[in-house]
């Protein structure tokens, strides 16, 4: 994706990929957060970017047991050595889940997903590929069910397509807002649950009344119709959706400096 924004020096290039757009907006969503439990993949890119842009003091917590990691490059996995070497503290995996996550100490849980439904519930377990084909296997739950249950709020980041944004999940791995208002309380889930889903097309947020995800923000040059076409349910739009600010040169430079040459997030 390109833009017609005026030319700037090379360090501030205003040309970006849709993944970069997504990651930059995901990083912005961390402004004001103190601590973030970071899922593998896109969330890790966004959370690391936020440390260089929107929220320099952000404390990154990885399920491999690191508290306060400050990697200089994006880790390929959540257990890369630099996450430990740069951390304020390293603890065991049981401890990170029991004392730190379940202990209710984390402001934001940042997750990816394979499928999301209109209540921001998540499937990362399996996909139904039709009656004649075996179920397709996904990686599984990882830390997500308890991350979504125990953080102050949850952010999701994933690419927008009808494959990912579905009318009905093939499997509920992780509860977002359940079947709607009151369900988190009924299930005993702490925190506000998902407050934003950041995609390569825009941002969806739960309607305060119904908890249903509605389109609140479009990325520059994206249309409501494009987003609706990429969503598996009849997506509602919150009045006139805002348009997200284009990535700044500083954001793009910081993101690109983080990325190991030749690697995707």
């Amino acid at each position, binding site marked *: 994706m390109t833009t017609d924004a005026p030319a700037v020096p090379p360090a501030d290039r205003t040309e970006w990929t849709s993944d970069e757009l997504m990651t930059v907006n995901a990083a912005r969503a961390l402004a004001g957060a103190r601590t973030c439990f970071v899922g*593998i*993949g896109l969330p890790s890119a966004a959370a690391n970017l936020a440390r260089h842009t929107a929220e320099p003091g952000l404390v990154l917590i990885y*399920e*491999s*047991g*690191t508290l306060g990691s400050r990697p200089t490059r994006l*880790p*390929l*996995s*959540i*257990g*890369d*050595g630099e*996450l*430990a*070497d740069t951390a304020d503290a*390293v603890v*065991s*995996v*049981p401890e990170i*889940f*029991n004392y730190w*996550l*379940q202990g209710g100490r984390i402001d934001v849980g940042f997750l990816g997903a394979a499928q999301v439904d209109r209540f921001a519930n998540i499937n990362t*377990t399996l996909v139904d590929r039709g009656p004649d084909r*075996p*179920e*397709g*296997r996904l*990686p*599984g*739950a*990882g*830390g*997500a*069910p*308890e991350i979504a*249950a*125990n953080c102050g709020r949850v952010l999701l980041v994933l690419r927008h397509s009808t494959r990912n944004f579905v009318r009905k999940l093939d*499997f*509920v*791995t*992780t*509860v977002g807002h*359940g079947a709607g208002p009151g*369900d988190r309380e009924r*299930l*005993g*889930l*702490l925190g506000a649950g998902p407050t934003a889903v950041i995609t390569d097309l825009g941002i969806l947020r739960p309607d305060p009344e119904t908890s249903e995800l509605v389109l609140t923000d479009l990325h520059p040059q994206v249309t409501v119709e494009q987003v609706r076409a990429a969503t598996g349910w009849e997506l509602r739009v919150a009045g006139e959706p805002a348009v997200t600010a284009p990535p700044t040169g500083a954001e793009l430079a910081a993101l690109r400096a983080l990325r190991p040459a030749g690697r995707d997030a």
Partner: protein
Amino acid sequence: MAEIRSLRDAVADLIHDGDTVAMEGFTHLIPFAAAHEVIRQGITDLTLVRMTPDVVYDQLIGAGLVRKLVFSWGGNPGVGSLHRFRDAVENGWPRLLELDEHSHAGMANRYVAGASRLPFAVLRGYRGSDLADRSDTVSTVTCPFTGERLAAVRALNPDVTVIHAQQADRAGNVQLWGLTGVQKEAALAAERVLVTVEEIVDTLEPRPRSIVLPGWVVTAVAHVPGGAHPSYAAGYSVRDNGAYADWDPVSRDREAFQTWLKDNVHDRSEPQ
């Protein structure tokens, strides 16, 4: 006290057909060399336990040695799918793979219960997830003080736990450092413990961020430098991210996998 043995002898003596085996190490210190020795010896019908099956279990599953997998996240970290795992689950190749699937928090607490010799552990988890319906090792308990219902997970007590560590001394005391994951719990939950190490030293010098397993809870130590490759051992090696990426095309194809297995495991003997 732990015996210091060759990897071949230790694997042959400690791991048997039909055993429940945990090989732990969260990205760091994954005991690949020991897994390859299991493949070479053809030890089969295993129930494998691991939070993140990773490439190491993709290889064991592809080799047809695994009856059941107990796990919580089965991907190739930073790369994509585990294709041998998927092929087994989706197509039953080379054999059907039974699953007992959990969340990370659930698996970690199952090991904690196992290490504590309790029959179960309690956590605030699985709420609303379909996971609980598909596992007979998740249930609920009610707090006798508050009436709150919480998840209960059944203890994991493997027959054997295999881990890789940086150092052991000659009495079999083991020290590992850096990300130490769930290794202590996995080791203490098991009946038998095999540790492969980068180095055998005269004296273990206490290190920052280390854990020590005394030799009297370790069954055998084998000296296997590089035994975690393509995972890594902090202070000795870095993660071979390229090898993880290269695994993707190999593992996508059954024949490519079998060739890889022959060339890289069967035709290579134990490294010492």
